[in-house]
Structures are given as C-alpha cells and as structure tokens.
C-alpha cells in the first residue's frame, strides 16, 4: 500500500510542477503575435508609431534609346570580404502547388525556385529601382519604341548542360504571351501588347509590339518572366515537376511539403558567383513556428512581404536581438481595396460609392490591419510613377483628419441618394488569417454611416468563383502586384477590359486615358496622365475605395550579408551575391 501511495504522491507532485513550470515560461521571451489578428478595435486603440519605409524613387522607365550595355560582371564593393560556403535557410510560408512559374501566380512557387532561373533583365538586387541585364547582356529599342532587340550572353548553359539559345527565349515568351490550350498564363495581360517574338540568331531575340509601351522593359524585368528550356517544355509539356534553369542555383531535392533544396550551380554565367553552397526553403506554414525557427536559428531568413513577419514580431526582434538579427520594412506593391459593383444597386449610384470612400479611415486601417506599418494613397503606391503627391492626397475628401467632416458628408450623400437610414449590404471577403480582419474592418467602418454589412468570408475556391461571377455588390480585395506601374494598377483594375476590374466600371474616357499613358514614353508626361486619371476617379466615379498599400516586414540573422529586401514580391530572388559570414 505504501509504495502505491508514494508513487501516487510523486506523480501528483510531478504533474503540479509541470503545470507551474509551463505557467512560468520565461518573461524574457514574450509570446509571438498570434497568426490571426484580433478583431479590429476602434480607431481609438493605442496608437502605434507609423512605420513608413523610405519613399521609392520612381521606378525606372527607360527611354528606348540609346542601347544599354551589360553591367560589369565584377562582384559588388563588399566582394573583397565575401566568403564562400554555407547554406542560406529560409522559412517559406506555403508549399508550392507546382514549379511551372509561367503558369502560376503565387509566391509559394516563385520564391521557392526563383534562384534557379534567370530573366532577360532583372531589377538590381541592391538598387531596386534600376533595371540591369540578366541573361541579356544588352538591349536596343527602335526609334518608335515598338521593337526591342535583346542580345544574349554567350556560353550560357542550362542546369542539364545544354546550351541556352534564342529559341528558349522565343518559346518562353510565346508561352506567356500566346499560351496554347494546355497552358494558363497569368502574365498574358501584361504582355497583351506584344505582337511577335522572333529569333534573329542564336543569341539575339527581337520583340515587336503593337504599340509603344512604356512599361515593357519593367514588365519583362519582373521575376515572373523566367526563361525556361525549350527542350524540356517540348518533351514534358510543362515545367510543373521540373526545375531546369540558368540561375545561380539548381534544384537538388524537393521533399513535398518539407523543403525545396537548391545547390550551387558551378556553371553559372557570372564567374565567381554564387558565394553560397545552397539555398534551402523550409516549408513552415505556421507564423509562430516560423518566428520561433528564426529565433532558434533553424532558419537564417524569413520570406519578404506580408508572409514574413507581423509588426509585433518585428518589434520584438528589434528589442530582444538587435545585435543578432536585422529587420526590414519594405514596399510590398500589394494593396487592400474595396471594389463596388457599379451595376448593382445601390452602388450603381455614384453618391453611394463616394459615401463609402469618405467613410473609410485609412490611418485606422493601417493601425488595425497592419499594426501601424503601411502606406495610404490612391491606386498608385506612394513613390511610384503616377502616384498622387501625399500633400494633395491628405487634403482630398476621404483622407481628411479628423474624419468628422468626411462622415457628415457621407451621411448627407446617402440621404440624397435615398438612404437616410443607411441600407443593408453584403461584402465578399477571402478566408485566411491575413484577409479575415479586412472584412471585419470594413464592416465596422461602414457602420458609422449607417451601412449594415454582412461579411461573407469564403475560402479561396468559392471566393474566386463569386469574385469572377461578380455576384456581390461589394468586395474587399488586394493582391501583391508584379511591378509598380500604371499599366498594372490602372489598367487591370479600372480599364473596362482589365482582368481585375470586378467593379464592372467602364468609362470610355478613362479607358482612353489609360491607353494613352501606356503609350507615352516621356516619363513626366506619363506621370501627369496617370495622376490625372486618378483625380478624375476621385472626383467623379469612385468605383474603388482604396484603403492602404501594404508593406512587407522581414528579418535575417546578421550572418547573412549583402542582402537587400526587394521592392514588391517578384524580385531579388536569386541570392547570387549573398554570402554568410562564418
């Protein structure tokens, strides 16, 4: 009897001790922020310092002439200190659905294998606003800016040893611009102005456009335009399960749901690079686990963009480990918007749409949805070509503070439109911890002017079904875009043929202006037209109420050297000149 009593007492003591130990988790390690932010608080929540990254220089929009020469192949200024060796480990937010970058629109695929591919051109990984050569060592444009000729580097090999030729470029771009029945190309609209692509000789390719397009060079420099091997595409039909590129790293192993392991490409066309032995993307879907893995140095770096870190996590790292970890806030080129269906009551009335625009508190949105890290403006992200000046934005209705005048004006507009007591409506929102709070926030904002909103939150497949069916009077939407250019933000969302024009907005005058700015090669003139378009929308039409522009937050151990965060989410993926200090 006594031994049983002793055992039971001991077990009981152990249990109690375990509970006490768990409860006394060290205060030095504050809990990571939960993956799903709490329901948005009122705008009077404790204000956080607004984190605004350094404004961008306008993205380069090079004039067609003169010819640009290849950047020197010399390694950067820190090269003398660069060390060879080591594997860069990154916490990757989701498993890639497949590896055919031409057919996919998710960073889950692009980031995992971006280092294995090269584009014709690329954004400078250290000066994000400049475009430099990649596979093409130089390019020339015709005087009418409708013909671009790219001169490929010589002696470039695919990872399987076969030589790169102009045919690979032709096949890759035909795939993206003129996909066959079996191929889906999310970039088709970006290349809709392309008339044909021709092989001039083994190392020269010519692109002919239908009309001059100022954004053509920035468009093909974004990371979603890799050159893929003709011989593999023709043999396999697609690249969903094959990774054969010309990038600084090649695929070593893919463990489904676990990790994408890339190893150094010894035949990379830039001699002396890469410094790293490899890059491994560990698939870690849970935010808190990714954060813990970074702190425990199981990964050296997070993803960029919104899957990187929350503001709380970044601030905690800056407080606890400032000598060990570097953090960044960078421009994401993503946004959060409200699109109102101009063909459905009551949003067919511009007064109602304007009332919604007036009601939304952008600063509260940044505080609640992004924990203080974000930018507000209209369609073009602040600092990009065509963005309205911030001083002008701050004076416009909808952006004035305090919000009392905007709210009063909004109520009056609703009354004039026949809704003195507001109305009921439904809002379509996307499921997921990143998106759910957006719908809640908007419903909360619209309540102030009497609009009672039922938020229908749907998982992706149902969401896109309803989105493309344009079944809802109002939706909350937002994506990370490829380039910060009016051809993306204005054409896709506001042109009557735009692929993301879910409001159904169609205005011949606006269409004409959007097309005009696309063909305007003079940067200043183009900037002026793009701003003019947005002023007209904010004066007369309001199909979209813009809430905020996202910023990305990421971190890396200080051992990782020579890395700068990207602008947007589709650039700076190669890690060619990144190195790890030992």
């Amino acid at each position, binding site marked *: 009897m006594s031994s049983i009593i002793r055992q039971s007492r001991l077990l009981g003591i152990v249990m*109690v001790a375990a509970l006490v130990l768990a409860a006394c988790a060290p205060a030095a390690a504050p809990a990571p922020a939960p993956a799903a932010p709490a329901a948005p608080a009122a705008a009077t929540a404790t204000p956080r310092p607004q984190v605004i990254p350094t404004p961008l220089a306008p993205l380069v929009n090079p004039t067609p002439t003169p010819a640009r020469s290849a950047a020197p192949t010399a390694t950067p200024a820190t090269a003398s200190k660069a060390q060879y060796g080591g594997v860069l480990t990154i916490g990757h937010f989701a498993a890639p659905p497949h590896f055919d970058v031409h057919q996919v629109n998710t960073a889950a695929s692009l980031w995992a294998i971006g280092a294995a591919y090269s584009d014709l051109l690329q954004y400078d990984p250290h000066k994000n606003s400049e475009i430099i050569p990649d596979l093409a060592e130089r390019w020339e444009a015709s005087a009418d800016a409708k013909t671009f000729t790219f001169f490929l580097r010589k002696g470039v090999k695919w990872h399987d040893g076969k030589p790169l030729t102009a045919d690979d470029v032709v096949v890759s771009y035909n795939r993206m611009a003129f996909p066959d029945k079996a191929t889906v190309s999310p970039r088709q609209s970006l290349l809709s102005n392309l008339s044909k692509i021709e092989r001039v000789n083994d190392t020269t390719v010519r692109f002919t456009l239908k009309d001059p397009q100022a954004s053509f060079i920035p468009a093909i420099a974004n990371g979603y335009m890799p050159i893929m091997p003709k011989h593999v595409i023709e043999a396999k039909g697609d690249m969903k399960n094959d990774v054969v590129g010309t990038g600084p790293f090649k695929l070593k192993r893919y463990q*489904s749901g676990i990790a994408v392991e890339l190893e150094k490409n010894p035949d990379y066309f830039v001699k002396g690079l890469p410094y790293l032995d490899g890059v491994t993307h560990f698939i870690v879907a849970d935010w808190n686990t990714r954060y813990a893995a970074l702190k425990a140095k199981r990964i050296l770096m997070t993803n960029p963009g919104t899957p990187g870190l929350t503001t709380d996590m970044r601030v905690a790292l800056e407080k606890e480990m400032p000598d060990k970890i570097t953090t960044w806030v960078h421009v994401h080129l993503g946004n959060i918007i409200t699109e109102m269906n101009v063909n459905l009551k009551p949003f067919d009335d511009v007064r109602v749409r304007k009332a919604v625009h007036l009601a939304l508190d952008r600063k509260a949105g940044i505080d609640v949805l992004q924990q203080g890290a974000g930018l507000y403006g209209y369609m073009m992200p602040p600092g990009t070509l065509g963005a309205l000046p911030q001083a002008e934005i701050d004076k416009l209705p909808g952006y004035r503070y305090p919000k009392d005048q905007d709210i009063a004006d909004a109520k009056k507009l609703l009354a004039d439109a026949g809704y003195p007591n507001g109305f009921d409506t439904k809002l379509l929102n996307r499921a997921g911890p990143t998106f759910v709070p957006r719908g809640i926030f908007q419903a909360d904002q619209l309540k102030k002017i009497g609009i009672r909103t039922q938020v229908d939150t749907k998982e992706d497949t149902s969401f896109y079904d309803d989105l493309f069916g344009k079944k809802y009077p109002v939706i909350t939407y937002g994506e990370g875009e490829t380039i910060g250019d009016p051809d993306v933000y204005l054409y896709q969302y506001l042109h009557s043929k735009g692929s993301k024009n879910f409001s159904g907005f169609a205005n011949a005058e606006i269409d004409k202006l959007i097309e005009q700015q696309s063909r305007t090669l003079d940067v200043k003139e183009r900037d002026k037209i793009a701003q003019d378009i947005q002023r007209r929308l904010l004066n007369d039409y309001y199909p979209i109420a813009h809430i905020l522009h996202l910023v990305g937050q990421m971190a890396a151990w200080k051992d990782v050297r020579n890395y700068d965060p990207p602008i947007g989410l589709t650039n700076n993926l190669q890690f060619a000149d990144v190195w790890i200090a030992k």
Partner: protein
Amino acid sequence: MQRYIIRRLLLAVPVLIGVSFTIFIIMRVIPGDIALAVLGGEGSAGVSQEKLTAFREQLGLNKPVYQQYLSWMWDFVRLDPGKSLQSGRPVIAHIRDTFPVTLELVILSIVVSLLIALPIGVLSAMRQDTWVDYVFRVVSIGGLAMPVFWTGTLIIMVLVGTFGWLPPLGYAGFFEDPLVNLQQVIWPSLAMGYYLSAAVSRMTRSQMLEVLRQDYIRTAWSKGLRERVIMYRHALKNAILPVVTLTGIQFGVLIGGAVLVEIVFVLPGMGTELIQAILRRDYPIVQTIVLLIAAVYVLVNLGVDLLYAWLDPRIRYT
C-alpha cells in the same frame, strides 16, 4: 476466428463503397469551380472561359455524375487513383510521402497518451476524492480544455524561450535518421498525447471505479493479494475494454485529424495534405485519402474487436 475476420473484411466493402460515393458527391456539390481553382487560384484573372471549358472536358466533368463515379472507381480498383490536378504527380506519391509521417505521429501520440492516462486513471480511482484524485482530474480537464495547437505552440515557446532550441526543420524518416526523427516527432506526440490522455484517463477512472466495487475485487483483497496485483492484473484488465474502444476511435480520428499539430510542428502529414487538397478542390487526392482513412477505421475496429477476445477470454468469435 478466421471466418469472423473474413466476414468483417467482406462487410467492409459496402462501407467503403458508401464512403467513396459520399465523398465523391460532396466534392462535386460544394461551391467553387474546380477548373478555376486548379488553373487559376490567385491567378484566376488570367484564365479564359475557353480554357476553363477545355479543362472541365479534360477532367470529364461534362459527363453524367454516375459515369464519372464509375470511371473513378474502376481506376481505383486497379490501384490507379490518378494524378493530382494541381501538381500532376501521382496520388500514390502524395500518399506515400505523407501517410508514414501521420502514422508515426499517431502511434507515438497514442503510446504517450496511454502512458499518461492509464496510471493517472488507476491512481485517481484508487484515491477517489483525495487530493491525488483532484490533481489528476484537473490535469485531465486541462488536456481536454486546451486546444492541441495551443499546447503545441506553448511547447515551442518553452523550447525556444528557455533553451533557445527547436527541433530540426524538415522531416527525416525513422529509418533514415532515427535521432533527428525522434527529435522532430516527440514534441508533437507529447502535445497530442496529452490531449488524448484526458478522455482516456477519465474513461479509465470511471471504469476502474465500477470494477473496484465488484465482489471479486473484495475477494482478492480478502485473500491478501498485493495492491499492485489487484489493480493491474484483476481490476484494470476488466476495466480496459471500453478504453481500448476509445483508443481505437481516437486512432481513426487522428489519422485524418492531426492537421493542427502537423502545421505547428511542420510535419508534412496526411492531415495537412487533405486540408490543402480540399481547399484546392484536388478531387483525386481528397477521394483517395478519405477512402484510406475509412479503410484504416475499418481495420482498427477489427483490431479492437480481436483485442477484446485476447483481453477477455469469455469473448469468442465464430
């Protein structure tokens, strides 16, 4: 006994057919266009109606539902459940990659659960309404009350916060690298085992209380047998049958339901694969995994019944 086993296995066939038909219909009834989900997803803006129509024809979605079902069942019977609509990889490859991970996690979790729950249940019953009983009941209720993903996150926080350590990322099979494998699997097993142990310990306690009141137990005390012998050889053996049933049910549930722990601890298991396939409307993977889970349930139930016969000699099957 052999006839009994064969009969049970044959009875499983209509069960599996019913499950297969149910999941087949459900996947086609739930909202969301499969073609849009597969071809577009976040890039849906770039997909034309012609491509969507062509893809639906390619999948045979324009055929009558019964034809689609029979076609799929015929392929399944020939052990060719098809390819993932998303990745193009064979479904078998997806299952081969994920099922062993989940199986190992579930087995270890059950073992941990029994190691915690049985002693707690027995001791709690022996010391009914004493402080020992109260402490163990609080611990049990804690296991039921705390969501398993929260417990898992807590474990990670303690590991990182106190020891500055986290298990290696990625997954190494047990036969590939046993040490790394155990480092990776033991923590989620603890989280899940604690969660499971709550119900098992409660069941053990209540069954033990019932058994301890029986006359033969009084007789055993009167004979002067040691307490350990009475508890574990006589009482527990008679109290264990419902616990075995409960454990069998938990096993079946976990095979498809361990997704939260898999996500927190970065284990590429079948639960995660199933959830992602459902969200992507990847029919072949969903249908195959659900059938596999149903088959596991059937086999585990059979195993539980056979275990009954071993534990209780009065039970005999013909």
